[in-house]
Structures are given as structure tokens and as C-alpha cells.
């Protein structure tokens, strides 16, 4: 049996057989889902209802004040201020508006809303909108303009964006591509971090427990490193598969029982990834269901996702392994050594945002070709399809560069790893690691 395979098998089995693996794999998505559910529940589910008494002695609103789901107005003709105040104190109403007699729409300068408790920001804007609607209509009528005429004149025009080849670039498709690209890039970003650190910790464990020397007397350090990377990569794939299944299952359940949840989710400033996911699904539902998603080149996107997932993981995990081999007992050393590795990943996520809306901008093209950022950035461009988001030769070049980059980092990391894993006691700097990497074998 190939030695890389033996090492990979152990790395895979020891991780998968742990109880914590099952726990995190199954519980983590549940936890994240319930966490977001809670946030959404608290932010959007606060259905605090306000009842506002309106003492309109000037008959300004003429019963045109409409109520909505949170604010309801009730006219209390002829009420005086004192009794209004008592009503609020008794909590019969949450607040009141008092318009003295003789005020007209033209002469009105301000309206006072008096409440017992301070109103929330949403309540305030709701009241503002409702009053504005009513008053605007009144003002138009005062000028002898029929409000319905204005409504019919003010309409959103339908604009279809197309490129010169006649390909559909409608907003709905564009937004769906944007969301899909964003989700893809974001997932790869998470993968790089989670499994990269897992590789690093595995290497550190071998070094700290002093087993490295025993093993490298029977296996080449490079085989040990590759075995570890392969094994943990397999764990990642399995874990991701389970997560996708669970998320899909949960999604079905959630949509079944809480049909409004996704709409609510999209309106909340929760987290970019979730918003993107939410808005993508929103798009799907709003714009004729699956037809929008099917207008994207899904096989291409999925294929590229797997390619960039593997390429990015292999490229970065080798670097993470190199750092792990250079670290001694003190895990804090790892922090400073990791910085040069995490920088391009974070840089990639920054470019991703730009690239998802402007796939042909200079920085997006650069980011999708440069191997350290391309796994993340290319997802944004590929989601727009060929040639809307990326040209064929750019994609091929990017893939070739990623493969070259992965071979290059693995080769360099292998050399650092070989020296680092047997080096104890000394604090290693990047300068030294660089020297090891360039040293002749």
C-alpha cells in the first residue's frame, strides 16, 4: 500500500471516528440555523403594535390616515388634551396626535406625536410614512390635482439589459449570478480557513508530541505531508457533503413551515453570506422559480466550484502545513506566522465583492488569475457565466495558474516542512523558513 495512502487513511479515520466529528458535523448546521432563526425572530418578529389616538380638530386628515400592521390610528373626535394624556398614562393608547382647530394643509408646520414610551426607529418611520401619505394626498387635492393621475404617471419602466450578442442580462439573472457567485466564493473562503487550520494543527500535534522523527525514519516528510493533506481534504469533502444534505433538508422543512422566513431574512442585516443566500432564494422565488437558476450555467459553476475548492485547499493547506512545522509548543507563534497566509485569503474576499458586481474590472481579472486569490474570486466571475463573467481563455489560464501555484507552494512547503518538523526549541521567522525553502536538498 502506498505510504501516502496509509497516512491519509489514518488522518481520515482518526478524525471521522471521533465523537466530536459527528457532533460538529450534524450539530453545527443545526446550531447555525437556529442561531440565525433566533436573530431573525428577535429582529423581525417584534410585532409591537402601536395604537395612536388622533384628535383631529382641524379635520386635516379627513379619515385618510391608514393603518398598517404595526401602527393603527384611531380617530377620537372632540377629545381634549387632558383626557388624551390620561389615556396614554392608562395605556389605552400608546400615543396621540393632536391637531388644533383651524390648521390647514398649507399652514401646517409640524405635527407632534406624543407617546409614553420612546418609539422605536421602525415605529417612527412607519408613522412618518403613513402621515406623509395622507398629507401628500391632501396637498395634491388642495391644488386640485387628482392623486390617481399622478400614480398612473409615475411608474417603473421595464429596462432589459442585453449584450451585443443578444444574451440575456436581465437584472434578475444578474442578481441571481451575483448571489450564487458570492455564496461560492464565501464557501471556499470558509473551507480554506477551516481545513487549512486543521492541517496546521495536525502538523503541530506531530511535532509537539515528538512523533515526527519516528515517522520520517520510515516515510519521506513529503509523503507524510501529502498524506495529511489528502486525508484532511477527504474529511472536508465528507463533512461538506453532509452539511449540504442537512442544509437542503432543513431548508425544505423551514420553507414548508415558515414561508415568510426567507423574506424576513433578506431584510435583516445579519451576515453577508446569509443575506446572499437569502437573496438568491428570494430571487429564485420572485422571478419565476427555478427558471432563473436554470438560466445560469449550473454544471459549469458546480464543476468550477469543485475544481477551485480542491485547488485552493491544496495550495493553501501546504502553506498551513509549512507554518505548523515551524511552530514550537507555543501556539501563539503560529499567529504571527499565519499572517502572510491569511492576508491573501482576506484580500480575495474583498476582491470577490467587487468582482461579483463588475466581473471585468481590472482588479477582478487580476484576482481571478492570481493563484492565491483565484479560488475565491473566480467563483464570482464564473457565476455570471461564459462570456458574461469570464472569457474561456481567462478561465483556462486561471486554472493552469492555480495548478502551477499549487505545485509550487507544495514543493516549497515540503522543503520548509522537512526542516521545520525536526527543529525544536528555536523560534522560527519567515526569513528562516524562506531560506529552508530555497535550500538545495
Amino acid at each position, binding site marked *: 500500500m502506498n505510504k501516502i495512502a496509509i497516512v491519509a487513511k489514518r488522518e481520515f479515520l*482518526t478524525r471521522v471516528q471521533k465523537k466530536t466529528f459527528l457532533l460538529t458535523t450534524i450539530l453545527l448546521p443545526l446550531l447555525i440555523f437556529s442561531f440565525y432563526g433566533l436573530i431573525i425572530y428577535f429582529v423581525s418578529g417584534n410585532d409591537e403594535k402601536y395604537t395612536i389616538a388622533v384628535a383631529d380638530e382641524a379635520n386635516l386628515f379627513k379619515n385618510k390616515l391608514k393603518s398598517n400592521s404595526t401602527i393603527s390610528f384611531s380617530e377620537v373626535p372632540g377629545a381634549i388634551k387632558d383626557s388624551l394624556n390620561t389615556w396614554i398614562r392608562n395605556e389605552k393608547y400608546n400615543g396621540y396626535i393632536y391637531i388644533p382647530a383651524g390648521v390647514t394643509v398649507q399652514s401646517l408646520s409640524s405635527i407632534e406625536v406624543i407617546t409614553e414610551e420612546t418609539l422605536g426607529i421602525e415605529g417612527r418611520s412607519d408613522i412618518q410614512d403613513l402621515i406623509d401619505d395622507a398629507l401628500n394626498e391632501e396637498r395634491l387635492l388642495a391644488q386640485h390635482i387628482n392623486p390617481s393621475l399622478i400614480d398612473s404617471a409615475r411608474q417603473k419602466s421595464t429596462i432589459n439589459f442585453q449584450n451585443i450578442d443578444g444574451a440575456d442580462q436581465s437584472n434578475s439573472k444578474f442578481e441571481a449570478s451575483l448571489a450564487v457567485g458570492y455564496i461560492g466564493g464565501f464557501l471556499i473562503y470558509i473551507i480554506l480557513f477551516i481545513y487549512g487550520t486543521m492541517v496546521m494543527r495536525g502538523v503541530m500535534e506531530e511535532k509537539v508530541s515528538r*512523533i515526527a522523527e519516528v515517522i520520517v525514519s*520510515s*516515510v519521506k516528510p513529503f509523503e507524510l505531508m501529502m498524506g495529511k493533506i489528502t486525508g484532511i481534504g477527504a474529511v472536508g469533502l465528507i463533512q461538506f457533503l453532509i452539511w449540504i444534505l442537512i442544509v437542503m433538508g432543513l431548508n425544505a422543512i423551514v420553507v414548508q413551515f415558515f414561508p415568510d422566513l426567507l423574506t424576513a431574512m433578506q431584510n435583516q442585516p445579519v451576515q453577508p453570506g446569509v443575506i446572499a443566500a437569502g437573496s438568491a432564494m428570494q430571487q429564485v422565488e420572485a422571478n419565476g422559480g427555478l427558471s432563473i437558476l436554470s438560466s445560469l450555467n449550473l454544471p459549469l459553476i458546480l464543476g468550477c466550484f469543485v475544481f477551485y475548492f480542491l485547488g485552493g485547499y491544496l495550495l493553501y493547506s501546504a502553506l498551513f502545513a509549512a507554518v505548523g512545522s515551524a511552530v514550537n509548543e507555543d501556539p501563539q507563534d503560529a499567529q504571527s506566522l499565519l499572517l502572510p497566509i491569511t492576508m491573501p485569503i482576506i484580500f480575495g474576499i474583498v476582491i470577490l465583492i467587487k468582482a461579483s458586481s463588475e466581473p471585468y474590472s481590472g482588479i477582478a481579472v487580476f484576482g481571478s488569475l492570481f493563484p492565491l486569490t483565484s479560488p475565491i474570486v473566480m467563483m464570482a466571475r464564473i457565476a455570471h457565466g461564459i462570456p458574461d463573467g469570464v472569457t474561456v481563455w481567462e478561465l483556462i489560464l486561471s486554472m493552469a495558474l492555480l495548478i502551477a501555484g499549487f505545485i509550487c507552494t507544495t514543493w516549497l512547503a515540503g522543503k520548509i516542512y522537512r526542516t521545520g518538523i525536526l527543529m525544536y526549541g528555536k523560534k522560527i521567522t519567515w526569513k528562516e523558513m524562506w531560506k529552508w525553502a530555497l535550500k538545495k536538498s
Partner: protein
Amino acid sequence: MNILELHNLKKFFATQKAVDDISFDIKQGSIFGLLGPNGAGKTTLIRMITGIFYQDEGKIMLDGKLFNPTTDALKIGYMPEERGLYKKMKVGEQALYLAQLKGLEKNEAMQKIKTWFERLEMQSWWNKKVEDLSKGMSQKLQFVITVLHQPKLIILDEPFSGLDPLNANLIKDEIYRLAQEGSTIIFSTHRMEQVEQICDHIVLVNLGKKILDGTVYDVKQQFKNNSFRIKLAAPAAHIASNAFDVLSNDNHELTVSIKPDADSNDVLSYFIQNNIRIVSFEEILPSLNDIFIQLVEGTEAMSRAFQKVDN
């Protein structure tokens, strides 16, 4: 027949010459002591023999052929000084894993592990995690893992450190047994009394160079200073002869140093002629410890600590 031959091995690091032109041979079935102060280059030398490092110059012949780290892993068992095991892994699985890495097939490895575990009474450990073992127990496990695949060449770096006398003897007996069965053992240590006890042949390295090479007997002969300890039946006051100088006279016991042109029989005949009855007469040979200190002292290496052993 030589199991291992080193020819002009060199390994230079950026700051020092770790191994600077070392050559020696090791006979099959012998127990070989590789000695030297800390930082002398022993570990680097061993790492080249085990294929962890590549030499800058020179060549290594293993079992009559040029050493190939990839294919010869099965022929070598190495227990490094910095030893460790996966703490969270079960004892049996760990042994099996490491044996498979050496190149054994699963069934074969399983069988050998069982034999060894029975021999050292470790069967009950199989499902224990390594972190639950005591230091001595994990050392025993480490030893088993090192010799499990019946390597022709076994390299043990400080194998007895941390072992109680009982377990140390157990391991020592196993080492003898392995040597008798034809394995060759390279034994790297600072403990000179163990070397004297166990090793047939020694090499002393210092500052990357070989400074001594020979059997324990030859080395001692080489460094003896012709002194003898003589026990007398009755105290003798005035002893003087052309054949020897009296170094000390403590009632019944004399220490004498024989002059270059005389030999031990001249000493004996002096006492016989003077009718002084001798109870015992023995040559004082230097201990390896003394030889070691004599050779290493004064060099740069001496600034480092070295374990002192009373003989």
C-alpha cells in the same frame, strides 16, 4: 560481514560542520556504541543513517549495497531520543499504523505485534490510549514499535532514559536477544557504564569528527597507564623497586605504576623475593568514562554538560 559501512560522510549546516568526514564499519550482530558529548554530531550522523537527512558527501553502504532511504526503511528500526507517539491513538492501532508505514502488510504486522505484546506482557494495553500509559510503559511500547519489523539494523538513542531498573533490564535482555538473532544494534548514549556493559565496539565522535574507534577491550588497553592494584596479607611499610613506583600505600592495598622497561612479572617477583604475601593482583584499566573525559575535556565541547558516572 559488515552490515553498515560509512565512507567519508560529511554534513555541513550553515553554522557548523555537524559531521566532518566520518568513516567506520559495523559488523553484523554486534552491539555498537556511538558515543560523544552533546552536539558532537551523533544525531546528525544517525539521521543520515536512517535516511532522514541526505549526506553532503560520502556514501553509506547498508547490507553490502548503497543505502536507499526509500526501499531500505524496512531494514532499519530507529528509536530517536526525542520520542513520542500519537497521544489520542490507541496502543494497538498505533503499533499497527507505524508497522504499516514501515512497509509491513497488515496481517503480518498484526501477528508480529501480538507476539511482541505477549512477550513483554502488554496484551491488555491494546485498547488503551497512549496518554493513559506511564512514561515507562510508553517507552516499552516505543521499543516494541522500533524492533517490530525485525530490522537488520536497530538504532537506539538513549533507550534507557526514564526506565526503572526492572524495565531497563527487560529491554537490555531483549537487546541481547535481538543481537543473538542477528540484528545489529547501534546504541547512542551518554551513560558510559551501560556502554561498558553492553557494547562490543565503540566509536567516539567529538565536534563532528571520529576520535576513537575500537572494541571496548582494545580501547581500554590503549588508554591504560600500566598501574596495578595489589592487596597484601600484611601491611608493608618500605616498598621500593626499580620495576615500579608506588602511587599510594594504604595499609593492605598498594597502587603501583610499572616503569616502561618492566612488566607485571617484575612486580610480582619483587614481592616474592621480599617474602611479602600477595592476596590479589589486578591491573587498573581506565573506565570508558575516564577515557571519554580525557579525550573530550579541553575541547570546545566541554563547555556543555556531560553526565558523570561513578564506577
